[in-house]
């Protein structure tokens, strides 16, 4: 390109003009439209994929089930009075007639029949005598679209069974503990376990996380050690959660077993002596969400205007007074939002808890930091992993519970933030 004819007026006219310009333009626009279609299609597919996720859960948590009763309720009617209207005494006679003396005695020793309410006895009749068993379930879409085919199928394959529309998520599902019978199983234990774990996690992670953020934003000088801390926190945020599970297994469950099993507090009982307790799970999750809390809190603190700090220093406040009275209150909405975001993360974590040692089956509610535990996501995982379809329905219902809890968390975060903001503005 060193030699060139006199570069003067725009003589080179290699650019398309007239008709050739027009056709060139048309081709470019065609290409543009084609790609726009591709971009739109991609966006649509993304949305569809995510909609399918939600559809699938709803689809699995409602639908027809084929139920067979061991004894039909109609057969239990006494002298034309339907079962629902029988008195407590009549219900007890039914119980005595249908179940063995041994079981009767056990029920009596659990709670004497004389003090049981009628509803209680009625429930016993339902469970022990009628004893409905779910034979098969159909997802919602099938239930709505293939109604007659399903009826046909039930008549042919499950004689004596009845079709019933079942919402797998129902009040009984929320109240009942875990059970091997899909018709009776519920998520109470798992829900309480999740709440215990998340509560303790936040109790540990919130002060430490905010403390670390204050240190990094307000105190840390720009030296290699502090830079290392900052880089390290950013890197920790990207470590797979299962690695934290292994850390928790080695340190909290195994290394600190006397503490986490409650033994040194004299609280241990044989079932929890192995350190696979709520507190181990909470400490593990606390380490996992610390980087998230720190990074969010740092951003919130950084957003506090410099002028506010200077105003505080100018009236003779110390560094800590400035932070405590001015910086933190201003940054609090941001810190809280970040914390609740981290809490949601802890709520949904599964893998580290499996590694730390969630129990596969507990029917007793957790009562404190040293209880054995299970949690909602663990429960979902276990139900999903079972081959029977009915447990898939339970898993779907449990997923709805989990998602509703997460949504509630986030809603609280938003409300809290907005209220706090308007308050500060008024004040």
């Amino acid at each position, binding site marked *: 390109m060193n030699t060139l004819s006199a570069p003067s007026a725009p003589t080179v006219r290699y650019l398309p003009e007239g008709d050739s310009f027009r056709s060139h333009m048309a081709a470019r626009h065609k*290409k*543009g439209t084609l*790609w*726009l279609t*591709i*971009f739109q*299609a*991609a*966006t649509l597919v*993304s*949305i569809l*994929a*995510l909609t399918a*996720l939600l559809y*699938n*859960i709803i689809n699995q948590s409602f639908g027809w089930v084929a139920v067979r009763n061991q004894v039909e309720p109609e057969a239990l009617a006494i002298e034309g009075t339907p079962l629902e209207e029988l008195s407590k005494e009549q219900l007890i006679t039914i119980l005595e007639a249908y179940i063995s003396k041994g079981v009767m005695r056990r029920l009596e020793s659990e709670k004497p029949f004389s003090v049981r309410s009628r509803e209680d006895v009625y429930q016993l009749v339902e469970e022990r005598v009628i004893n409905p068993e779910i034979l098969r379930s159909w997802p919602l879409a099938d239930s709505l679209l293939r109604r007659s085919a399903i009826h046909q199928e039930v008549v042919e394959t499950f004689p004596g069974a009845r079709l019933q529309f079942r919402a797998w998520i129902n009040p009984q599902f929320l109240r009942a503990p875990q059970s091997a019978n899909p018709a009776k199983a519920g998520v109470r234990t798992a829900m309480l376990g999740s709440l215990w774990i998340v509560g303790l996690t936040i109790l540990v992670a919130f002060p*430490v*996380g905010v*403390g*670390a953020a204050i*240190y990094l934003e307000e*105190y840390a000088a720009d030296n290699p050690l502090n830079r290392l*801390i900052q880089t*390290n*926190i950013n*890197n*920790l945020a*990207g*470590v797979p*959660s*299962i*690695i934290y599970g*292994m850390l928790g297994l*080695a*340190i909290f469950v195994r290394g600190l077993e006397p503490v986490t099993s409650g033994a040194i507090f004299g609280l241990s009982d044989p079932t929890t002596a192995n350190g696979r307790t709520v507190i181990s799970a909470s400490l593990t999750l606390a380490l996992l969400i*610390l*980087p998230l809390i720190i990074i969010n809190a740092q951003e919130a603190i950084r957003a506090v205007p410099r002028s506010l700090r200077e105003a505080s220093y100018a009236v*003779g406040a*110390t*560094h*800590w*007074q400035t932070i405590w*009275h001015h910086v933190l209150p201003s940054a609090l909405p941001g810190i809280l939002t970040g914390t609740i975001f981290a809490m949601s*993360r802890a709520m*949904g974590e*599964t*893998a580290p808890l*499996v*590694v730390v*040692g969630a129990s596969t089956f507990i029917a007793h509610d957790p009562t404190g930091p040293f209880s054995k535990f299970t949690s909602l*996501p663990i429960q*979902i*995982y276990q139900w*999903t*992993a079972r081959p029977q379809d009915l447990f*898939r329905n339970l898993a*779907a219902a449990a997923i709805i519970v*989990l998602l509703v809890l*997460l949504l509630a968390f*986030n809603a609280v975060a938003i409300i809290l933030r907005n209220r706090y903001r308007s308050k500060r503005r008024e004040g």
Partner: protein
Amino acid sequence: MNTRYALIRGQRPSSSAQAALQRKPRWHEMAIQGFLFFCGALSILTTAGIVLILGRESWLFFRSPEVSLREFLGTTKWQPSIGQFGIWPLVNATMMTTFFALLVALPLGLCTAIYLSEYASERVRSSLKPVLELLAGIPTVVYGYFALTFVTPLLRGILGRDVVEIYNTASAGIVIGILILPLITSMAEDALNAVPRSLREASYALGATRLETAATIVLPAATSGVAAAIILAISRAVGETMIVAIAAGAGPAFTFNPFKAAETMTGHIVRISGGDLSYDSMDYNSLFAIGLVLFLITFALNIVSRWFVQRFREVYE
């Protein structure tokens, strides 16, 4: 409140002004600062803990006569019950699920990001972005459920039940792709959005179409930000556990067939540690050796991703 007034009173130069202006040690402030430093330093302890634990157990693992580093990295059979510890089946399965995840998430994520950043109206963008963030918050076990009860039956329906096994890496990989989709979209969109408007205007003023502006000006200008998003997403895919634990299969298998069951590194750790595991056994130690490999891979990916982010910031911030 009280401390503040007390301190102000205390600072009044009552005796001698000289003494009042002298620096006094504020013990409780120092204690607070000490606590805050501890909070910050805890992160270092965490990392040190991870490295130490993984390192120590791995060391015990490799020191035992039954296994050597050469066998670990050089053979293709993982069967602890008969003393065979070749990590490749696990690594291979991880690579397969990650590959499928990227196959789904890269084109969809990038196209969606470009659409949102360069084409969509403000209304569409501001309603779709929160949806993306919400979806990024769904627990992975839910995605696992989706893989097993929706995607797998779908694949089996399309390709035939004898081709696709109930547990397979393809379905797990596809769903991991859906999982990292919001991550890629959101980060890539941020990067595209950070490209200054003036560049777009320059491009339009030269007679470029929207596509030409997006593809040859905005996207190249945002390369390092987009690259950071992709690498972070790979790291997430490699470390993803619940989806593979539920949908990919239980049992290490060295296969390149995506429709067959295979167990990834994370899937293996979760399955073995979820069962009855006795400490100081080969099984227990082997998990930490796998964990170490996993940690090193994701750590390296995260560092590369941060490096790209840094480079992107240098140009535009």
